[in-house]
């Protein structure tokens, strides 16, 4: 470690030596003491000069102490430091991994990874040099800047102390992008990442700075629930559970499925290191149910957040589809689809259906979550689009979109030709909130939009004026629309919600909603004008209660549901597009060690010695 000086100009204070020495010798006023005779003292002095080789040193010991004191203070003023192995950086963003795995402990009663990380960052803050600025950034599923670039230790320590674990998976890229944004305003050469290594091994990010990846010691054994979903059966639900374990995990776990306060099923599993077990519960119920799955390990479990999962099952019913009689081709295609109830039929259509297929404006028929509008142009795009008569050639379509999966549109003859208004470009349609699913030569053919009322699929041409109903892709497209409705209605398959953000929740528009978090704290949010409560942050696993006007609107359970976090997988190397960064070999990368406090301490010690030297009892007195 090489010494350096953060403030070399402080050495100018050495000039104070001149007045110090001058004042010492000029202003030295010895107290006068009358003696009967100097005879004895002259002999003493003569004897002392002969016998004491350090008498000159002793004579001016006070001056030497004062010079030593001044040198200590000047040394402290120059702010010396010992350079660590790490390159010294003035502006240093510190990314602290706060993902769920950082809550893991290495042993029962041990420290969490975040506590260890805090200690390490605390040392960094403690050894902060005067010209260094730290910026603390918490990284989990997103990145949060805890402080600006500052050298204020109190502020940094306060931010560090207030840092908690977010029970979400790591998303390192966000943190690096935030650091990159900070680097635009300040010269950032290096970024420190403190993590347990449970981060994605590959990150799609071009590193514009050096990354010091400091990996913490691995945590202990862990087993947890990584998947919890249910699929509808003819008689009820099949509930699927996946239990995974971390390395060095061995033992037996007990799974307990509860519905409300009553236990529905119980299962015991044997887990081995890095095992992945699938468990199926059969649930014979047609009514809505809230399931809670609890996992109880028989030994030490380093991460308790993944030991509980929540699942809300809807009431079992057929899918409600509305398709007017005029759309004969669609009704033919729907007739072969199982487990749906088609309206209008023997019964009148209800106010709300799951899927609506209409060929007129959207106000026609009941409200639906998924609406397929055939031959209808969105009203707000009337200025941008014009449907003319003429053949339209399909150029391309998105084959992976749910509606068009396995649907072949090539060579389909279409008599309606949607055309963009002159001077309008496709991006203006996208800017209006529409996604183009299929593209013709002169304009879009199929659009998709989503708003508070649901998902809308706009077929800008009428299928009756095309050869599509005669193609095999037509019933597939209708079936895809039905599947889409199944998925969105949650009637066929439901999945446990993972931490992060709660899904949009329908609530009275323009009302103030209270969200009671699992830890009992509350957040107040305003419901949007379209009647959806969105953007509810769910960083803790547990049950979230939504209150409007003091009354419970809904209760939503979220859990970790992250295999990588549960398995506590760690990486030793982070792969970026062009470079890879290995974890630091040393537990603590030696940082610059400031020495001014030591010098100030020596100065204080010298001051005490000087004081003691003045006040001490005369030596050599006979007992």
């Amino acid at each position: 470690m090489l010494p350096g000086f953060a403030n070399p100009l402080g050495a100018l204070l050495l000039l104070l030596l001149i007045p110090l020495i001058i004042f010492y010798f000029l202003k030295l006023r010895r107290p006068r003491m009358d003696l009967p005779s100097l005879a004895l003292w002259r002999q003493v002095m003569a004897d002392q000069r002969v016998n004491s080789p350090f008498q000159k040193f002793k004579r001016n010991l006070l001056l030497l102490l004062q010079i030593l004191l001044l040198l200590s203070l000047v040394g402290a003023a120059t702010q010396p430091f010992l350079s660590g192995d790490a390159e010294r950086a003035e502006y240093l963003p510190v990314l602290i991994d706060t993902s769920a795995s950082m809550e893991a402990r290495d042993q029962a009663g041990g420290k969490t990874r975040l506590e260890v990380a805090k200690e390490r960052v605390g040392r960094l803050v403690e050894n902060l040099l005067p010209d260094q600025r730290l910026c603390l950034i918490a990284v989990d599923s997103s990145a949060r800047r805890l402080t600006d670039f500052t050298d204020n230790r109190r502020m940094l320590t306060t931010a560090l102390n207030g840092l908690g674990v977010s029970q979400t998976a790591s998303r390192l890229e966000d943190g690096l992008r935030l650091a990159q944004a900070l680097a635009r305003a300040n010269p950032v050469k290096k970024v420190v990442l403190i993590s347990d290594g449970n981060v994605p091994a590959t990150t799609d990010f071009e590193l514009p700075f050096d990354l010091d990846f400091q990996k913490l010691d691995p945590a202990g054994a862990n087993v947890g629930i990584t998947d919890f979903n249910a699929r509808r059966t003819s008689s009820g639900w099949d509930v699927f559970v996946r239990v995974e374990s971390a390395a060095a995990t061995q033992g037996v776990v007990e799974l307990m499925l509860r519905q409300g306060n009553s236990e529905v099923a119980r299962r015991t599993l044997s887990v081995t290191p890095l095992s992945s077990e699938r468990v199926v519960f059969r649930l014979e119920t047609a009514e809505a149910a809230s399931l809670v799955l609890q996992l109880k390990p028989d030994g030490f479990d380093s991460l308790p957040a993944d030991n509980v999962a929540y699942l809300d099952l809807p009431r079992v019913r057929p899918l409600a589809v509305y398709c007017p009689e005029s759309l004969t081709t669609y009704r033919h295609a729907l007739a072969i689809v199982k487990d749906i109830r088609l309206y209008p039929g023997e019964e009148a259509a209800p106010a709300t259906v799951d899927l609506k297929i209409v060929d007129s404006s959207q106000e026609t028929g009941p409200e639906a979550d998924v609406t397929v509008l055939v031959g209808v142009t969105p009203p707000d795009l009337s200025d941008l689009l014009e449907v003319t008569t003429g053949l339209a050639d399909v150029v391309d379509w998105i084959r992976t979109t749910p509606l068009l999966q396995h649907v072949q549109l090539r060579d389909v003859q279409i008599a309606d030709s949607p055309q963009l208004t002159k001077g309008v470009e496709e991006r203006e349609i996208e800017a209006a909130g529409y996604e183009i699913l299929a593209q013709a030569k002169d304009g879009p053919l199929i659009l998709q939009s989503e708003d508070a009322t649901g998902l809308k699929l706009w077929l800008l041409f009428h299928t009756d004026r095309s050869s599509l109903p005669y193609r095999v892709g037509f019933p597939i497209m209708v079936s895809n629309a039905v599947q889409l409705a199944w998925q969105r209605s949650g009637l066929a398959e439901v999945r446990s919600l993972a931490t992060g953000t709660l899904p949009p929740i329908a609530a009275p528009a323009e009302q103030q909603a209270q969200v009671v978090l699992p830890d009992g704290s509350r957040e107040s949010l305003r419901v949007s004008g379209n009647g959806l409560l969105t953007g509810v942050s769910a960083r803790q696993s547990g049950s979230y209660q939504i209150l409007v006007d003091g009354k419970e609107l809904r209760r939503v359970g979220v859990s970790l549901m992250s295999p990588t976090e549960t398995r506590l997988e760690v990486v030793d190397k982070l792969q970026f597009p062009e470079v890879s960064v290995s974890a630091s070999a040393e537990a603590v990368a030696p940082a610059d060690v400031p020495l001014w406090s030591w010098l100030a301490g020596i100065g204080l010690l010298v001051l005490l010695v000087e004081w003691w030297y003045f006040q001490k009892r005369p030596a050599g007195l006979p007992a």
Partner: protein
Amino acid sequence: MTTARFTSLYDNSTLGRIERMRLLPRRRLTNRSRGEHLAGKGGTSTEFNDYRDYAAGDDMRYVDWNIFSRLNRPYIKLYRHEEEMHVVVMIDASASMRFGTKLERARQLAGALAIMGMMNLEKVSLYAAQDRETAPKILPPCTGRMSLKRVLDFLEDLPAGRDYPIEQAVDAVLNQHRGRGIAIVLSDFLTFGDVDRSFNRLFSAGLEPFAVQILSPEELQPDVTGDVRFVDVETSYTLDVSSAGDLLGLYHEHLSGLQDRLGTVCRQRGGRFLSINAADPIETVLFDTLRRKGWVQ
């Protein structure tokens, strides 16, 4: 009923005890004149000493007739001679003795020893050395109770002078003094000069040196620390001392060395040496210290 003090030096009871005490010289250094001390040679006292053959002209009264009747030869009886001892008391009254109660203790001791001498019918002379520019102040030889008041008056009115090294004071006294006996020197003996020569001269002059060193508590146990400028009150010379506290051990070594040397010098010349603390009460010094040391009885 209270009795008026006879002198300011002591109270009356102390003075009474002093009058009953006597000096105990080691050697008999006496004068020819008659006195209280028996000389080794023939004299006229009542104490028989020896016989010798009669010679023409001898006093017939000293012929031992009993021996003459037995041996038929005349023998003269010899008696011991009683001679007088001169007690010289020298007081260092220089400025250095002003410290504390040094001079007062010196005056009290001088008075007490002089009274003891006078009460034993010795000739007592007092010399006070105050200033090297002037000759020592002298109280001429006196003896007997009649001279008591003179001695006390001399001492009571004795102020401290200025610079007068003790060796020079001894020389000045010896230039004036005649007579054998004892020389009591009361001083602090803190001088740059050669004290050995002074004791040699005293010894040569037939005086048994009784040296009393009187030091103040500040000299015995100096309480100094740090950087100090010492000023000699006699010469006004200065001496800068740093870290004086560290030198106190050395100071005590030198003080002990001085006292040992003075003791040795006095012993070698048949004399005595005593160092006393000026803070000790005079009664303790007279009736305890001096008695135990065998100076007085």
